[in-house]
C-alpha cells in the first residue's frame, strides 16, 4: 500500500514550499509541489514610473535581489528598444557574475551539503588522514591538518554540549548518509571556509552596486557609476584593483575547492547520478552581453527537448522572438482564476483559493510552459545547452568534471548522467567554475574599455506615447528569469515576473504534465518515511527559492518543518 508523506515547509530554503509524495515499496510513485503563500507582489508596481520599477522588484525576494533589479531594467529597455553603453554592460555583468559566484557557493555548502554530509561522524574522523586525502585532490592551502583539526574541534564543541543550534534539524545518522568520516570532515572544513569566500564575491557586488542586498547603481539606460580613473569617490583604478584582488581570492576557492568537492560527492554517491532526472526539456537564455547592441554573449542560450542532449536549438538574443512567443503560464492547477494558458504580457493574477486538491488546484505557483511543455531551468539546463552547442568554456569545465568523477569512482561517467539529482549539483559547480573564469574576463573588458577613454555609462531613456511591450531576461543562478512589462503612456500597465522557481516548482498543467520537482521525485528511493532525506536531496538540488516564486513571507512564523506520514 502506498504511504503518503507531507513535508511542510521544506527547510533550508527561502519561502514556503510544501512537498507531498506517495511512497510505494520504498520508492516515490507520485509527487506534488505546492507553494503555500500567495503571489501577487508584481501588482505593487502597476501605474508607476518604469524607471523606478527595479527599486521595487529587487525587493521581491530576500536572496536574489540583484537579479530582479537587472531583469526589470532590461525589460523596460527592451520595450523602448534602447541600447546601453558598453561600460554599463560590463559593470552589470560583473555584478551578475559575482552575485552568481556567491549564490552558488552558498547553495552548495550552506544550503545543501548537509543533505549528504553527516556532521555527527566528524568527531571520529582522523584529521591527518582527512588532510592528506584533501591534498591528494587539490593543492588548496586550506587543506592543512590544522584547518581540518579546527573544523573538527568546532563540531566536537557543539556535539559535546548537546547544543546543535542551527544544526539541530539535520537527519544525522540516516542510513542514506554514506561518506567516510574523513570526507565529511573535509566537506565541513570547506563549509566554514566557504563563508569567507562567498563574502568576497558579495563585496565586489557591493563595490559596484553601492551595497548588497539591494544594489543602488542601476538606471534604465545603463548604470549610475561615475567613472574617472583619477578621481576619488568614483570608479577609479584603486577600486578596480580592489575588486580584482577579491576576485583573485574567490577564483581558486571555486575552481580548486568547490568544483572538486562537487565532483567527489558525485563519485561517492554514484547512485544519485541515476535518480531525479524528471523533466528532460531544458531552457536557458543567453547572458553576459559583450557589446552595446547585446547581440553577442559569453554564455549561450537555447532549448533542448525530450532529453535529446546532443542537440540544442539556439536562442540568439536575450529576448529572442521565439522566446517572446513561446512562454505561457497555465493556471489550471494554481490558485488563480482562469484555466486557459496566458501569455505573460496578458497575464492576470486574480487569486482563487480552493484548499489543497491533488486533482484540482493545489499551489500558488503558476505553471509556466514553453510551447506548451514544462521546462527544467537552472545550471543543469545551462550546462547541457552549452555542451550541445559546443560552447568552449562549458566543454572545458564539463569534460574536466566528468573526468574527475570517473577517475574517483572508477566508472565511466558521461554527460548523460548529469540528468539527475547529483548532476544538478555537478552542473552548478561547472557553471560556477565558468563564472570564475568570466569574472576575470569581464574585469578585463571593463578596464580595457575604460582605458581606451570611454567613460559613458548611461543613455537616458525616452518614453513613447501609446502602448509598448518588453521582456527582460537574466540567466540567474537558479535559471531563466524573465520580467514582462507593458508600458502605456510611459507608465507600467502590466508587470509579470516568470522566475526560475516558477518553472521548476510548477504544478501540473491542463494536460496533467507535472513540473520538474514533481517529475524528478518519481522513482526516488525513500528508506524511512519518517525521515525522507532522499526527497530533500532531490528538491534541494534545484536550489529552490520560493520567496519570489510565490512572493511573500510567512508573517506568523512556523515551527521547524513538519513531516507527516499519512
Amino acid at each position: 500500500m502506498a504511504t503518503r508523506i507531507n513535508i511542510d515547509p521544506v527547510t533550508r530554503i527561502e519561502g514556503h514550499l510544501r512537498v507531498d509524495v506517495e511512497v510505494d515499496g520504498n520508492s516515490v510513485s507520485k509527487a506534488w509541489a505546492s507553494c503555500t503563500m500567495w503571489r501577487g507582489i508584481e501588482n505593487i508596481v502597476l501605474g508607476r514610473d518604469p524607471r523606478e520599477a527595479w527599486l521595487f522588484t529587487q525587493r521581491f525576494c530576500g536572496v536574489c535581489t540583484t537579479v530582479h533589479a537587472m531583469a526589470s531594467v532590461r525589460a523596460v529597455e527592451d520595450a523602448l528598444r534602447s541600447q546601453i553603453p558598453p561600460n554599463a554592460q560590463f559593470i552589470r555583468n560583473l555584478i551578475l557574475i559575482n552575485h552568481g559566484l556567491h549564490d552558488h557557493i552558498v547553495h552548495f555548502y550552506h544550503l545543501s551539503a548537509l543533505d549528504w554530509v553527516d556532521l555527527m561522524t566528524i568527531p571520529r574522523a582522523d584529521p591527518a588522514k582527512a588532510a592528506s586525502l584533501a591534498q591528494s585532490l587539490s593543492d588548496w592551502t586550506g587543506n592543512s591538518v590544522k584547518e581540518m583539526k579546527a573544523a573538527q574541534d568546532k563540531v566536537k564543541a557543539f556535539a559535546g554540549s548537546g547544543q546543535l543550534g542551527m544544526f539541530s534539524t539535520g537527519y544525522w545518522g540516516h542510513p542514506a548518509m554514506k561518506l567516510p568520516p574523513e570526507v565529511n570532515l573535509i566537506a565541513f572544513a570547506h563549509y566554514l571556509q566557504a563563508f569567507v569566500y562567498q563574502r568576497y564575491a558579495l563585496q565586489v557586488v557591493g563595490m559596484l552596486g553601492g551595497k548588497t542586498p539591494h544594489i543602488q547603481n542601476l538606471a534604465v539606460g545603463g548604470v549610475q557609476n561615475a567613472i574617472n580613473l583619477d578621481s576619488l569617490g568614483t570608479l577609479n583604478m584603486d577600486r578596480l584593483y580592489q575588486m580584482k584582488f577579491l576576485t583573485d581570492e574567490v577564483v581558486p576557492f571555486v575552481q580548486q575547492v568547490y568544483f572538486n568537492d562537487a565532483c567527489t560527492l558525485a563519485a561517492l554517491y554514484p547512485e544519485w547520478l541515476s535518480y531525479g532526472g524528471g523533466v528532460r526539456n531544458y531552457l536557458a537564455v543567453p547572458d553576459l552581453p559583450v557589446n552595446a547592441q547585446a547581440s553577442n554573449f559569453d554564455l549561450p542560450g537555447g532549448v533542448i527537448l525530450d532529453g535529446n542532449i546532443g542537440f540544442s536549438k539556439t536562442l540568439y538574443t536575450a529576448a529572442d522572438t521565439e522566446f517572446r512567443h513561446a512562454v505561457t503560464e497555465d493556471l489550471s492547477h494554481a490558485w488563480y482564476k482562469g484555466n486557459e494558458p496566458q501569455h505573460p504580457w496578458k497575464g492576470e493574477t486574480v487569486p482563487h483559493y480552493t484548499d489543497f486538491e491533488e486533482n484540482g488546484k493545489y499551489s500558488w505557483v503558476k505553471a509556466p510552459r514553453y510551447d506548451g511543455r514544462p521546462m527544467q531551468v537552472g545550471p543543469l539546463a545551462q550546462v547541457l545547452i552549452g555542451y550541445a552547442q559546443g560552447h568552449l568554456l562549458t566543454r572545458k569545465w564539463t569534460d574536466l568534471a566528468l573526468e574527475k568523477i570517473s577517475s574517483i569512482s572508477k566508472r565511466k561517467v558521461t554527460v548523460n548522467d548529469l540528468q539527475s539529482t547529483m548532476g544538478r549539483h555537478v552542473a552548478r559547480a561547472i557553471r560556477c567554475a565558468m563564472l570564475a573564469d568570466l569574472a576575470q574576463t569581464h574585469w578585463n573588458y571593463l578596464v580595457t574599455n575604460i582605458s581606451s577613454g570611454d567613460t559613458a555609462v548611461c543613455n537616458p531613456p525616452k518614453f513613447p506615447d501609446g502602448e509598448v511591450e518588453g521582456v527582460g531576461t537574466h540567466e540567474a543562478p537558479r535559471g531563466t528569469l524573465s520580467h514582462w512589462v507593458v508600458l502605456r503612456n510611459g507608465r507600467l500597465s502590466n508587470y509579470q515576473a516568470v522566475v526560475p522557481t516558477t518553472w521548476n516548482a510548477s504544478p501540473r498543467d491542463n494536460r496533467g504534465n507535472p513540473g520538474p520537482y514533481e517529475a524528478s521525485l518519481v522513482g526516488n528511493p525513500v528508506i524511512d518515511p519518517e525521515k525522507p532525506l532522499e526527497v530533500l536531496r532531490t528538491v534541494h538540488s534545484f536550489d529552490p527559492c520560493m520567496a519570489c516564486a510565490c512572493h511573500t513571507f510567512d508573517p506568523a512564523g512556523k515551527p521547524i518543518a513538519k513531516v507527516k506520514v499519512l
Partner: protein
Amino acid sequence: MTAFERVPRVLVAGIGNLLLQDDGFGPQAIARLQSEYEFGDDVELLDLGTPALDFVDYLAGREVVILLDALSSGGEPGEVIIYEQERLKQFLPGMRLSAHQPCLHETLFAAEASGIQFKEVMLIGIVGASFDVDTALSVPVKRGMTRALELVRLILERNGVSARRRKRPAACQQWWNRPASAPAL
C-alpha cells in the same frame, strides 16, 4: 562600505521587506531617523532590506550593532521590544523571532566562522499587525514608530554616540512613497 574602508563603530540597520507593510518597519525607520535626527560620525544608518549572508559583512569592525526589525509575535501590535545579544542567541532556527530569523541565526554563526569581530548586537523590534503586499505601515506600527525612534536615540546616547532630534526635519528619502513623476515623454 567595502573590505577596504574603515567603518563607523556603531551600525543601525533596518531589516525587512518594504513591500510587505509592517515587515518594512526597519527600512522605514531608517528613513525617518535620517530625516528627523542628527548623529555623530561614529554611527552609520543603513537600510539593509532583506539580507541573507550579505549581513555578515556589515558586522565587521563594529562595536555595537542595532537591528530594527518587525516581529511576527511576542506582544500586542505596535509594541516595541528590545532583545539583547544573549537572548537573541537562544532562539533556535525553527523558532522565528522576526520575519528574518533564519538570516540572523546563520549570520551570527557565519560571522564567527569567518573570524569577524564585533562586540554587541541587539534588536529593537516592533510587533506587526499586517503583512500584506503594500508599502503602507499598519496604524499600530505607525504609532509605535515614534517610540522606537526615541529608543534608538537613547541607546545610541548610552553608547556615547551623539544623537539629537532636528528642529526641522530634513527631506525624508522614501522612494517607495514617491508619487510616480511624469515620465519624460
